[in-house]
């Protein structure tokens, strides 16, 4: 363990050193930490931007494809969303269904609405890969209540 910790430490010290050099040499401005214009509804980013930011448009299918921009441009997500927004669904450990917390937002695509105990038996066989991102290695204590 000590060896692996040392390797990790060396890796990060090298990364930090590289970062310092880059920051000193490149010098482009960082992305704003907050969106300069208040956004109060599902944003259509493509209305103002025609570069990579257009991909962040919260169209009706955004719940399905949000994993792609989240894996490439999380800094952009953080301009409007706090960590807790992601943690409501993507949790290490969670007992409340997201749809239970937000019954007042029925337009949001929240997983496991209604009686999902029955339905998961079918959906889990149709596409178990859809369970895996949230329950594969984390947040599966509730699964274990039955699946011992």
């Amino acid at each position: 363990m000590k060896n692996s910790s040392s390797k990790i430490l060396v890796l990060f010290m090298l990364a930090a050193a590289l970062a310092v050099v880059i920051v000193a040499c490149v010098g482009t401005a960082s992305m704003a930490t907050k969106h300069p214009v208040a956004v109060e509804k599902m944003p259509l980013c493509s209305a103002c931007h025609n570069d990579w930011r257009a991909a962040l448009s919260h169209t009706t299918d955004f719940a399905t494809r949000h994993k792609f921009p989240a894996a490439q441009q999380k800094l952009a997500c953080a301009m409007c969303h706090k960590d807790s927004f992601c943690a409501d669904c993507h949790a290490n450990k969670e007992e409340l269904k997201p749809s239970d917390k937000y019954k007042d937002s029925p337009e949001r695509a929240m997983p496991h609405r209604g009686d999902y105990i029955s339905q998961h038996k079918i959906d889990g066989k149709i596409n178990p890969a859809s369970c895996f991102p949230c329950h594969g290695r984390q947040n599966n204590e509730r699964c274990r209540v039955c699946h011992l």
Partner: protein
Amino acid sequence: MRIITRFASALLVLILPAASWAADLSGQSRTYLQYREATDSTKLLPLYEYLDFRAGDKSETFLFHFGGWYRYDLKDESFFGKDKSTGDLQYAYLRYRSAKNNAYANLGRFVVNQGVAAEHLDGAAAGTDLWGGFEISAYGGIPVETDLDSRSGDSLYGGRISQGLGGLYRIGLSYLHEKNDSIDFRKEEGLDLWFRPINSAELVGSMLYNASTSANALTSLYLTLGPFENLTLRTQYMAVSYKDYFTTTTLNTLSAFLLSTPSTTGPLDPNEKLALIGEEASLSFGKTNISVDYKKYDYDIAGSADYYGAKIAYTDAQYGSSGLALHRMDGETKDRQYSEYRLYVSRKIQKVDLTADALLVKYDVEINGVKSAYTVALAGGYALSPKIKVGADIEYAKNPYYDKDVRAFLKLVFNFDFASAAPAPPARKKGRN
């Protein structure tokens, strides 16, 4: 591990004084009280407190992020056989962010989202933009996962490098290596892509290669064409190799299924391969959206399945929303078939919001002697002030597991924001790129 702890302590000692001259604190407290019955008729009355906040200097160069929850069951009965109280530290990390190059460093518990990684981690991460459209990031520490054993000997590290050109493309390569009990647990390599050749066409995708099994585990592509006037077309493709994608699960059910060869003894066969193709056509008329969608699931072993349907939705940020959706799942066998109907209406009237939501699922084969499952929920909320909101909802359901299930939910949401009187440091230049 001791080395990392010492390194973290030293770093905190160095940076905290720098951030101490100003402190802005903002966050949210959410208090929930839920009433429901478990499937064994145990009555549960859990009280939850979710707290998240961030504190730092006004320039947001140093920010401390915290999020976690705690639950206490007000009834004396057991909570799924677990303790009356429990909780989770979701994230707690110190973040440094440079005004240049999107450079950042995280230290503590946080989530890493980059390429193949979507991980909870106790450790450190850093990233920055480079020349020529390149970006680089790396992370390392101890994974936060469902406990199967001790965390001794567990480690996780990885990184991603990407290159992009303005509004045209970004392509990334990523790597992840995890050890459990000092033994290799996961070795994953990934490719991610964003490509927008013209304004009305966009392709995003990712590929996950399992280096431990030397096979492609997951390919996922998503193509958006449009809008053409009011019409947008979306195509989805996903290919999964079960034995390569589920290799490293900590969920007993997936690993148990996969170990159950031949396929007749378990719902899933480890040699199964799934190819999914989906298509959605969406028409937008102002605040109204109408769409039809179809998904085709093709399996190497199990046959095929179709999922199709339509929905109409109206959304107005000021007045509320409403929607109707009808979908059908046609699995290979009757026990994998159901029809799903949903209707919801939400209305905002000044400080009050009201919501009604109904969901009906009709199964082609009875489950526990029942073919229909429905849920009706009514919710109401009132904004006591711009920062405080109270809400309540009640849900009635009848399904294969509950003859008459009544659930109630109360919530209090408090947003807070405190700024110190300490003088702010010189303003930093911020820019958009």
